[in-house]
Structures are given as structure tokens and as C-alpha cells.
């Protein structure tokens, strides 16, 4: 009797098992031929060259719904903020040129880049289906669904592919980067993940996909966001196809220059080497982890754009070409800092606490250094501009750019109780509505309290507040 029941269960499970064998991640479309005039590239946006005198970059960190809500609050405040330039009143949100995001912050950035102001609709899709929704329960529901167990038996279909489907259903439908390219408007979206083989940032823009001979236009936004928020172990790595050497790809000139810079500029050398590895014929797949593994602030690529002419959307090039007069970088950092309780006891902290410490501490320290690198880059540029202005004949000095560095993070809160409360919020895709409300509000408050932001909106540039810190 027992054997009969088992046999029937096996028979019933067979269709599911065979279905599982068929399941696979969506294939990344092949790019027939690299064409700089097509695809999702900054230069191909209709408004690429306009309004660059005020160049605004936003970076959204990781941190689940906490990060998504904080960055959402910053967007709301920018929507309600205006600057006057040469007698013309301009809306700050409309002035945003680039958004670079990681993990939780990528939900907000991607939805805004695709849907624009619709993101602010009270009770609209973003609020109802993400910010105020228990997305975690939805993910777990799908992971525990027997239909998906069968699919998960396939070696080419993982938990991240289920997350992709959930985000598609909740927020993005089948919108892809082709839709974003067709929209043709700023902000230029940089969704960052981590290339597992290189431990380096992998960004969903066509110039990153060119050496793979893969067509980003056919990749869905949900997939990019899933890759960016692909928390290790909870999810499996997300896989992209690569077809190196099959699209007439020619590497940019700077790569051969950079490969000579190991001694004088190793950062550039490794950037060049990293790009070249994608052309290796044996690299037929790219496996991606959460963007936070390589940069949890989303600031590394903008930093490179600020100091190097190598990127196609280089900010340095635009400063050198005298296109940018005011550069604004707003860093939205939802980092937390839990006060440890183990130093009150002589007992050695347990395994969970040790694992938690060793997995988060490097990321936190690296993020801190990344933010400090921005401060240093802007300080160096400001000092250089001043020295050049004082020494060179008029008209021959460096182009003078007003530099605005604005940091939005919970450690900026003065009230200790409030600060501790925000710094102890969990990383989850399920926050109570009142906490989401608080995060939206505090994002705006922190932005408006920034002396540098005030100097931007009042039109009275304060280099001390914006570059050096302090006023």
C-alpha cells in the first residue's frame, strides 16, 4: 500500500520534474554588430548634450526597502526643489543627468528611469507593489511553491531567476533596456551588479555589454535589478550569456594605453585588463552577484567618470570641454550601524555574530573609503582650479567648475535617539508602513539640511561647505 502511494506520488511529480529539466534563465540576446549609434548609451539619449552646464549625479546605496525608501524621499525633495541659473528657473529633479545605484536603491532608480514622475503617484504601482509591500513574503511564497521546486532542479535556473519573475510581475512587466533607450531621456541609469569572476562592478549599459557581444536592448529591467540586488546565498548568482569575438568589437584606444600603466596607475591598468578579459573566447557566461559586493554605494563608476576620460560618459571630459559649470554629486547612503552588545560580556561572541562581522565589516569600510575618495577627488579638483586660476594667464587656466558634494546618510542626524533609531533599521524587503513614511521624510530632511544643498538652491556657492566640509 505504502509502495503504491509512493509510486503514485512519483508519477504525479514526473511532469513537474521534466518541467524542471526544461527551466533555464532567459538567454541574453546576441549583438550582431557593435554600433556606437545604437543601444543604451549616454551619448544616444536625445537630451545628452543639453543642460549639462548643471550636471547632477545621484548615487543610491544598497539596503533593501530602507535604501529604496530613503532614495525615494530624496527624489521627492528634488522634485520640489528649484535652482535659478542665468535667470532661468530649473527643477532639480529634471536636471538629474545620471543615477548610479546598487541593490535596494536600484528598484527606485530603475522605476524612475522607466516611468518618470509616475513613481510619485500616491498608492501607485511603485508604492503599492514595492515600497509598502511585503516583497519578502512574495519571494518566499514563490520559492516554496512546489512548481518552482521542480524548476529549481535545473542547473541553469536558480532562485535569482524566480526573483527576476517576481520583480517583473510587481514593477517592470517586460520592459527592457530597449524601452529605456527608446525613451531616450535622462537620467542615464547605471544599475550596478558584481562580476563574480573579477570581483568588479558590472554595469547594465551597452558599453559594458559590447565586449560580450550581447545586446542589452533585449535584457529586462527586472533582470538588471535582480542582479543588482542579488544578495549572496539567499539567491543564486544571475547568469548572462556572452558571445565574445562575434560582433566586430574593437576595444577603445585607452585600453592599450591603460595596459602600460601598472606602475604609475594600477587602477587604470586593472580597469583595462578587466575589460579585455570579456573578450576571452572561453568566457561564454558572466555570473553576477549583488552590486554591494563590489561597491555598496554605487559611487565607484561615477568616481571613475570624475577622474578619467576613459568612460564614454566621462564627467572629466565634459569639464575639460567646458560643458559643465556646476557639478553636483548627491550620495544617498542607507548604511546602518548596529551597536554590538557582546563587549559587555567576557564570553566570546558566537558564530552568528562572527560570521555577520566578517561578512559586513569589509563592505562597510570599503563604502566609507569610497565616500572619502569622492571628497578627496573634489578637493583636489577645487585646489587645482584655484592654483591654476592664480597662476595662469586669463583664458589659459583650468575651466572653473563649482563642485557640490552632498551626502545623505543617517549619521548626519544630530538627535542621538533619532540617529540610533535609523541606524538600527533592518535590511529587508518588508518594512512597516510607518517606517517607510519616516524614511521618505528623513531623506528629504537630510537633503535640505545639507549646507551644500542650501548653497545650490540659493545660488550662493559655498566651496567650504561643498568641498572641504564645514562652513
Amino acid at each position, binding site marked *: 500500500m505504502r509502495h503504491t502511494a509512493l509510486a503514485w506520488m512519483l508519477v504525479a511529480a514526473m511532469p513537474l520534474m521534466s518541467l524542471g529539466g526544461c527551466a533555464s534563465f532567459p538567454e541574453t540576446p546576441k549583438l550582431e554588430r557593435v554600433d556606437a549609434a545604437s543601444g543604451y548609451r549616454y551619448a544616444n539619449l536625445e537630451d545628452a548634450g543639453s543642460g549639462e552646464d548643471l550636471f547632477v549625479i545621484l548615487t543610491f546605496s544598497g539596503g533593501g526597502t530602507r535604501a529604496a525608501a530613503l532614495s525615494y524621499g530624496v527624489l521627492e525633495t528634488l522634485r520640489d526643489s528649484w535652482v535659478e541659473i542665468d535667470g532661468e528657473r530649473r527643477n532639480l529633479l529634471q536636471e538629474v543627468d545620471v543615477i548610479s545605484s546598487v541593490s535596494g536603491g536600484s528598484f527606485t532608480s530603475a522605476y524612475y528611469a522607466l516611468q518618470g514622475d509616475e513613481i510619485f503617484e500616491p498608492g501607485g504601482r511603485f508604492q503599492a507593489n514595492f515600497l509598502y509591500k511585503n516583497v519578502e513574503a512574495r519571494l518566499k511564497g514563490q520559492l516554496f511553491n512546489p512548481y518552482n521546486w521542480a524548476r529549481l532542479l535545473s542547473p541553469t535556473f536558480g532562485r535569482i531567476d524566480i526573483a527576476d519573475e517576481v520583480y517583473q510581475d510587481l514593477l517592470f512587466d517586460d520592459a527592457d533596456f530597449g524601452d529605456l533607450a527608446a525613451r531616450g531621456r535622462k537620467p542615464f541609469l547605471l544599475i550596478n551588479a558584481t562580476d563574480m569572476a573579477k570581483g568588479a562592478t558590472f554595469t547594465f549599459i551597452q558599453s559594458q555589454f559590447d565586449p560580450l557581444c550581447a545586446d542589452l536592448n533585449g535584457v529586462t529591467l527586472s533582470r538588471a535589478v535582480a542582479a543588482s540586488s542579488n544578495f549572496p546565498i539567499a539567491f543564486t548568482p544571475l547568469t548572462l550569456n556572452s558571445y565574445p569575438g562575434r560582433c566586430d568589437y574593437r576595444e*577603445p*584606444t*585607452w585600453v592599450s*594605453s*591603460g595596459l*602600460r*600603466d601598472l606602475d*604609475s*596607475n594600477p*587602477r*587604470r591598468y586593472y580597469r583595462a585588463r578587466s575589460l579585455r578579459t570579456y573578450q576571452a573566447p572561453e568566457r561564454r557566461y558572466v555570473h553576477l552577484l549583488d552590486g554591494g559586493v563590489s561597491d555598496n554605494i554605487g559611487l565607484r563608476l561615477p568616481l571613475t567618470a570624475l*577622474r*578619467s*576620460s*576613459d568612460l*564614454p560618459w*566621462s564627467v*572629466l*571630459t565634459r*569639464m*575639460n*570641454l*567646458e560643458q559643465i559649470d556646476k557639478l553636483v554629486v548627491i550620495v544617498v547612503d542607507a548604511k546602518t550601524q548596529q551597536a554590538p552588545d557582546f563587549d559587555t560580556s567576557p564570553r566570546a561572541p558566537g558564530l552568528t555574530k562572527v560570521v555577520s562581522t566578517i561578512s559586513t565589516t569589509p563592505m562597510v569600510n570599503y563604502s566609507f573609503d569610497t565616500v572619502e575618495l569622492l571628497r578627496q*577627488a573634489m578637493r*583636489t*579638483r577645487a*585646489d*587645482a*582650479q584655484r*592654483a*591654476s586660476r592664480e*597662476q*595662469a594667464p586669463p*583664458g*589659459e*587656466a*583650468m*575651466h572653473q567648475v563649482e563642485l557640490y558634494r552632498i551626502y545623505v546618510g543617517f549619521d548626519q542626524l544630530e538627535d542621538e535617539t533619532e540617529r540610533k533609531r535609523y541606524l538600527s533599521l533592518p535590511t529587508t524587503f518588508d518594512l512597516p508602513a510607518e517606517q517607510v513614511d519616516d524614511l521618505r521624510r528623513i531623506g528629504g530632511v537630510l537633503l535640505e539640511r545639507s549646507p551644500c544643498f542650501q548653497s545650490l538652491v540659493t545660488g550662493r556657492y559655498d566651496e567650504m561647505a561643498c568641498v572641504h566640509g564645514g562652513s
Partner: protein
Amino acid sequence: MDQYLKVVFPTRRLVWIDGVAAAWTNRVFQVETGHHIVTLGPSMKNFEPDHFDLHVTGTLPTAPLIIEFTRRDTDA
């Protein structure tokens, strides 16, 4: 890692660095430390040398590396 360069030419022209338009002549500008191929915009080939292959390091905003292209009469 920030370096400073000035490209001298009798007129204002675009400076191309590593294959892309990246700055203007006769004005100090910032470049990343390292090797760079520097030339002028390709619209008029009336300059020489054809390009400079430079290793830019150790400069200051007040003491940039200065390179000069001279005007060459185009072949009649």
C-alpha cells in the same frame, strides 16, 4: 592620480585623447595619470607631429606638461 596638461596650437582646436575629443587647446586641463595618445581633432590635418604618445605623471596644475603642435601648410 590627477595630472595636468596643456596642448599648444596657434588656434583653438579640440584635443583628442586616446581616440576621443577630450579638451581644448591652449588651456590647462586635467587628465588621469598614465599613458595617453594625444592629437588634435581630425577635421583638419594641418598640424604636426601627427600625435604624441605620452606618459603623464608628476605634473601640477601650476606646472602642467606642455606639448606643442605646429601648424603645417596643407599640400596644395
